[in-house]
């Protein structure tokens, strides 16, 4: 870890000013990811701008019926907020499926979107990694890639975005409000994270110096029929091998509206609108779900140690949709919720 200076910003403009024109500066939220990366010398900012004291920690209703999640609200406060619990329980479940209570108490919503991949090689300076050091090569291709992606990968990077919260967000489709040197703008959630292509060092479409200010959820929360299913190597405190956020609007047994997003499979939270279209208007049956699952995984490609994710993802999609139909308040862990 290198030496750095520290500034606790008090206003958005102050924070943005501290950052602008300084590629060596970084915002810091809860620090649960950034500090780790600094200890490993993966990130070496020389100036930290803390967002902790910015007036961005509120969660408030929007005139259009939506809900605004402040960027510096913690993951815990967000998950347990009454409006989130009752109107966006999918988001509540997804957040609670991630990390640990201690981490969620520190982690901020902005930081959660911005957290970096958990690819083993990205963290280890002894190995080449295009994301860490563009042009050095991708060690995960042909290496140990259990945690890597199967969808939308490129020849230069097969990393995944590790967040759970963002998988639910991908399904709920909020807009990300950001503020930067050139003023404010809004980014559709689906456009926020990007695929690696030949620039894997870029995780998202945020411009240098831009600050996430809030996440604005639309009114529709799919609070009746939803499921967040996370599959991992232990029951808690592990990143998803595959996770599924499924949300349905049902009319009897007919699916009126559907949302389907996956985690642990791609460089971005993977929402598949074609698969959603295969669900809409159809009876809520296992056959329908299997068709949608097949669609999502149509172009999936395994890389050796993660080949199993293709089949696992298919099964997880079917299960998550079944749970959504049942309206079960599950499902960070299928098992634990079904009373051992």
């Amino acid at each position: 870890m290198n030496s750095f200076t520290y500034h606790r910003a008090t206003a958005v403009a102050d924070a943005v000013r501290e950052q602008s024109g300084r590629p060596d500066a970084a915002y810091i939220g809860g620090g649960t990811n950034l500090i780790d990366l600094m200890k490993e010398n993966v990130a070496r900012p020389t100036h930290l701008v803390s967002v902790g004291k910015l007036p961005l920690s509120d969660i408030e209703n929007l005139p259009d019926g939506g809900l605004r999640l402040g960027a510096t609200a913690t993951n815990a406060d967000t998950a347990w907020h009454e409006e989130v619990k009752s109107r966006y329980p999918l988001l509540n479940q997804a957040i609670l499926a991630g990390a640990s209570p201690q981490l969620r108490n520190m982690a901020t919503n902005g930081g959660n979107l911005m957290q970096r991949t958990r690819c083993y090689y990205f963290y280890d300076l002894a190995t080449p990694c295009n994301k860490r050091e563009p042009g050095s090569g991708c060690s995960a291709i042909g290496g140990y890639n259990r945690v890597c992606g199967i969808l939308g990968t490129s020849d230069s990077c097969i990393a995944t975005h590790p967040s759970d919260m963002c998988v639910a967000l991908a399904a709920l489709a909020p807009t990300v409000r950001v503020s930067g040197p050139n003023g404010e703008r809004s980014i559709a959630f689906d456009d926020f994270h990007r695929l690696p292509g030949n620039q894997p060092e870029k995780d998202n479409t945020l411009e240098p110096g831009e600050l996430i200010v809030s996440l604005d959820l639309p009114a529709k929360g799919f609070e009746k029929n939803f499921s967040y299913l996370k599959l991992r190597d232990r029951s808690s405190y592990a990143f998803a091998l595959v996770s599924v956020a499924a949300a349905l609007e049902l009319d009897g047994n007919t699916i009126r509206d559907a949302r389907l997003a996956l985690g642990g499979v791609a460089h971005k939270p993977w929402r598949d609108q074609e698969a959603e279209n295969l669900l809409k208007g159809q009876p809520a049956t296992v056959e329908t779900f299997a068709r949608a699952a097949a669609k999502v995984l149509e172009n999936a490609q395994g890389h050796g140690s993660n080949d199993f994710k293709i089949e696992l993802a298919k099964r997880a999609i079917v299960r998550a949709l079944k749970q959504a139909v049942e309206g079960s308040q599950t499902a960070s862990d299928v098992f634990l919720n079904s009373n051992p």
Partner: protein
Amino acid sequence: MSTTNHIGKPTSRVDGPAKVTGTARYAAEYAVPDLTYGWVISSPIAKGKITKIHADEVLALPGVLQVFSHENVPSLAWFDRSYKDQVAPGGSPFRPLHDNEIKFSQQPVALVVAENFELARYAASLLRIEYEQEKHETSLETKREDGFEPGRGKTGYMPPPPPRGNPDKAWEEAPHRMEAEYVHGAQHHNPMELFATTAEWRGEGKITAYDKTQGVYNVQQYLTKIFGLKKDDCRVVNEYMGGGFGSGLRPQYSVFLAVMAALELKRSVRLTLTRQQMFSFGHRPHTLQYLKLATNADGTLAALQHHALHETSRFEDYTENVVNWSGMLYQCDNVKLGYQLAKLDVYTPLDMRAPGAATGSIGLEIAMDEMAYEAGLDPLEFRLRNYAERDQNQDKPFSSKKLRECYHQGAAKFGWDKRTQAPGSMRDKDGKLIGWGIGGGVWDATQQKSAAKASITADGHLTVSSAAGENGTGTYTIMTQIAAETLGLPIEAVTFKLGDTDLPEAPLQGGSWTAASVGTAVKNTCEALGEKLLKLAQKLDDSPLKGAKLEDVEFVNGQIRLRSDASQAVVLRDVLQASGETKVEADSSAMPNMLKQQQYSLHSHNIVFAEVKVDEELGTVHVTRVVNAVAAGRILNLKTARSQVLGSVVWGISMALMEETVMDHKFGRYMNHNYAEYHVPVNADIHDIDVLFVEEEDDIVNPLGVKGIGEVGMLGVAAAITNAVFHATGKRVRDLPVMIDKLL
């Protein structure tokens, strides 16, 4: 001798309050004045040479005191034997910073020492080191044909016994047969506490090393031989340890580097390794096991063959007893056991809780399950039919063995009789598959030479000490119980001290022998003190004990009294006060009674019953219930003993379902070297665990009758779970851990 009954009681940890209030000091926490900080730099390559170290760039930073490397390491002991510690395997021990050669990935290559921790870490991140890489070999798979039989090099290693009967022929001719290979990868100890040393410079070449170790004397011996220090000038202390599991049996490079730097700089140095570096100094080796079993029509074993091959480093032949247990756990007249090593460009493996047996019991006990199914027998019934009444390896009777009772009591507790044999035949109310499996093992009950001293002050407070180790096992507590019971005192009137080379010598804290070895020394020492106290008591005017011999009296409730007439008693404190002495002292030691012991086979046993629930669609497994029945002689403290076995079960669940250090052979480097990706169970993975002790009376193992429970509890847990997974799903996983992808 006494009836004041502490032994066997579930006494709470006497060191508990110190631990939970933070007054317990760990190696990196000792406050010493004028401290400097070290940071180790680890090699990014697995094999090659260091060609250049740009130390000058880093030394230019104000506050950086030195960059140690092979270029400036002081001249040290020359011969290999100086670097050999008490449990060093055969070969040539690794010497930190010795030369420019890289022998394994993450090898320590330099040490930066600075005035503060942050600066040392920062300076280390700037240090440029150039390497010339050579081709490495780290894959055991490529070495299948290159195995060799190791020599006896390492203490405790026993080459497999010669074959008996005609195992090949018996296998060919038997009606039921199985053969299979079993594999598990490398595992790292990963105790919560990081390895650390605070090397205190006491002036004039004198050092106190507060070190994370399971053997202060082992470390002292290592340091004095390498650095040419006198024993009196080199004190080693370890009062508390945040877990060891074998990782602290050998002196690690952290203590070498901290002491070297302190001697060179004539300053105190603190050095803490990182979690990543915890994967750089020894592991349970990646092992391949091949088993061939055959069974007669009556369900008795016709033949048993067990062969193991595991990795070791290029420079040392690490050995552990993997296959020998298979020749003694079951009755079988046709047995062949084989054991080989293969050399790779990795660091030397290291004893890890139940070394060898934890591995061997995976192979043997899964094979036994496969064999039972082949022969159409219930796995427990199959074991009962092959119960070993004698140790056939040594052709000796067991000093005691209540494994059969473990089978019966464990089965009753678990409800084994409700099991249906066919895979996939049991489900819970939600439709999840249920699987029930068993596995068990056998472990050595040994005693080592150990010494202790005791002193009692006029106020009646007894202090007993021995340089044993406490890595969370309960040593402080059971030694306190033994001492208190022997002299008839309340627990609060006794203090036990350990982990300091200023105290009498004790063996390494390993092998499950501490209770037997140090416990017996403590007992002997307290008895010696008792004898002195009796003499003083007899000097009192009108002493009712006049003429009594030690056998005639007992120490109870702070009194010495006649066994024949409890009313004839004197109060211990009165004796001390009347004597005019400020304190009375004694020291003694204990050695195993070889003459008595060598006629017997001394072993502890266990059997584990496990229940899993499997979601067959998603491949998730949960261990919902475990019963571990253990026969390990006398239990000194039900609470700490149970706690040890609980920990063993948790670790067994880990071995079965999660734990594996994954190496990328392209780099010859472990890639999941952190706590986020090296998975061990979390609370949510652990459900009901029941521990059952079937006590054995055994005055052959040692006077206390204890066999030790640190390791036996681990045996068979992973196999029981893997067998349960088979029972649930019909899928036989032979490559541990059983992760989601293997069950899809």
